[in-house]
């Protein structure tokens, strides 16, 4: 597939992929839009029904492809639309993060955040903060 230019005057060349649960975090990102809470443009958001739908394989795939960061965002613990999906996510990612680090992918590159449907401002802060954090790490570049 043809690579497209992601960099522009204000953005870094970072590649961030965000998996957002439909009920809280995707709606929270919508809320960020509605209230014009701007955040770095180099994040690409993917809608999933629940953060628990995010297979660790997908996350690893993003990193293998050269993603600088992966954000997984779901409802706050206890508020999952499906009751307990995010509790599973929390466990899976707690195990995946140190493992990635062990493989040489800094664990700061994988973030799990809880963002509710009303927290547009928080969402934009999360993305901005994540980008800042990632900027401190060496860029990963596109996979060979």
């Amino acid at each position, binding site marked *: 597939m043809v690579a497209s*230019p992601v960099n522009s005057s204000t953005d870094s060349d970072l590649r961030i992929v965000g998996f957002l649960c439909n009920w809280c975090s995707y709606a929270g990102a919508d809320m960020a*839009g509605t209230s*014009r809470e701007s955040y770095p443009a180099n994040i690409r958001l993917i809608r999933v029904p629940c953060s628990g739908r995010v297979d660790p394989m997908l996350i690893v795939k993003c990193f293998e492809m050269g993603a600088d960061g992966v954000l997984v965002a779901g409802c706050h613990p206890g508020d999952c639309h499906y009751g307990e999906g995010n509790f*599973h996510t929390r466990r899976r990612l707690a195990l995946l993060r140190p493992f990635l680090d062990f493989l040489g992918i800094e664990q700061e590159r994988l973030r799990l955040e809880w963002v509710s449907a009303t927290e547009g401002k928080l969402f934009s802060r999360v993305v901005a903060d994540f980008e800042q954090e990632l900027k401190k790490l060496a860029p990963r570049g596109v996979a060979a």
Partner: protein
Amino acid sequence: MSRIGVFICHCGRNIAEPVDIPAVMEATRAIPGVVYVDENQFTCSLPGQDSVRRAIVEQRLDRVVIGACSPRMHEETFRKALASAGLNPYLLEIANIREHCAWVHGNDRPAATAKAIELVRMAVAKAARNQALFPKEIGVTKRALVIGGGIAGIQAALDIADAGHEVVLVEREPSIGGRMAQLDKTFPTLDCSACILTPKMVEASQHPLITLRTCAQVEAVRGFVGNFEVDIKQGARKVDQEKCTSCGICWQKCPEKVPSEFEMGQGKRSAIYIPFAQAVPAIPVIDTEHCRYIRYLKFNEDKEEGKAPPQCRICEKLCPPQAIDWEEEDSLITEKFGALVVATGYKPFDPTVYEEFGYGHYPDVITGLELERLMSASGPTDGQVLRPSDGTPPKTVVFVSCIGSRDETKGHSYCSQTCCMYMAKHAILLQEHDPEVQSYIFYIDIRATGKGYEEFSRRAQEEAGAQYLRGRIAKVYPKDGKLVVQGEDSLIGRPVEITADLVVLAAAMEPNTGAAEMAQRLSISYDSDHFFVQAHPKLRPVETQTDGVFLAGSCIFPSDIPQSVAQGSAAASKAAALLNRDHLVTNPMTALVDPLKCTGCLQCVAVCPFNAVETQLSREQRTLAVINEGTCKGCGLCVSACRPGAIDLRGTTNQQLLAEVMALW
């Protein structure tokens, strides 16, 4: 190769200004599989939808991608458009280039354009993997459950029942009526609250289609729209409702007196009681925590030390129809409903966190709701406003607004909406009770936006002589039997000090106790203050993201009476419209097991929150997982737990997600 049509929406200038739409279209044309690209001013408009429909037919499109606002806005709209053009509605994908792009990167056109191009490319990649999905039809249980018997819940129950559907109204207190029953008069008309509420309470109790369940609580909710199964805990009254004639002997003769919850702790009630005179049902309830006989039984059972409580049983001895039933216990009832209306209301903010105001420390610092009871003719002082400390009538009364509201440090950030008006009401009523009363009202802003509200607020100032002082107070302290209120009049920029007889704190309304737990039981969202979240704050104000669950009243946000009634009716009309239908279509986005790949490890069974994974034996006697599509809610937890990749989620398949990721490189 699929034939994908892509439609880029300008959304007026919302998208077209921050995003270079011709560039997006040009880039999109280059994507393999895309055979048609078009743009619209408003794709969601009728002409916009028409252009989509026309293109599907003329271009023989088999997938449609729309670059527009959030799918949470118009996914349904466009699915219908596809269906009307003969295409399966699930062959649609939406690229969210408004909320997730144009609106947040408006200051950087090149970045917004580049991102929009990628979002469209991801949606195209996903759409190419979309499959036609076919919903199933399910029946509807034509009954509604209303949770909460305040004015909003009563209104909702009455309207649903009037529309011809059976309603169960659940209330955890012994009587319906809610907070409105505690009010003396209502603003801005100064109607007697009980006089307008009581007929509605009676109507609800006598309606042939309404079943009242007081002392009852919702314990668990299962199922889905049209087919909810609800566990209700029916608390024991220990009084036989069939036999009781509400003669009142028991509660008059009961020797155990405890502070009355209804009177906000200012009056007493007996251990067997009805919470207030007009209670519906007027059947007393025995308070098992305080009843002497029950304490005696418990004392013996637990073999406690010391002196046993007396074996009172006076109520039982004196009850003419022998209605006291010591044996009655709490019971669990499971019933089916098609729709749920949640109207769990509010509770007043507890001002003790404002230590400097001395609530709970000085008896003459009270809340608005407590003053309400002191003013009520049926209240603990028979409608005479008297100071709790010494029973004298107050002459100087200071009101303080925004207690727990508009104050993030100690309370909530929101405006509680009703306080400005009830403070004005109190000032007017106090002056009517006793013309010598001088009221001072410390306010931040006067918010009087309803019909007749501004006029009412002026009346408090001009006719009742209330002195409005713009500012917060700093401290309340006792001096010579009175209370000194230190504050600031920010309009003159000076500290002020008022020696008051009574200080009334306008405590904010906050969600009722247990709101968050209730939301979790119902799988609906709640915000950081624990108010329930509406499906859309403007366009779907009484619906939730969970189909079939509707909201009314102050559980959404502080509401006054007219607003609560309107919301009750609105929720009722939504519920009735649902119950009027004979069939509903199910969400086809459920999980599916490939039996050839399933290893039978049953990790899916372990993680499924809905017990939707069942097992079957294969012909070779291997255990296989099978999804029950009726109970599967489509969260996809099982998919990501399935190592062999035997499970997939329709609508969000592994192929689709991977295609989205791979489209980025």
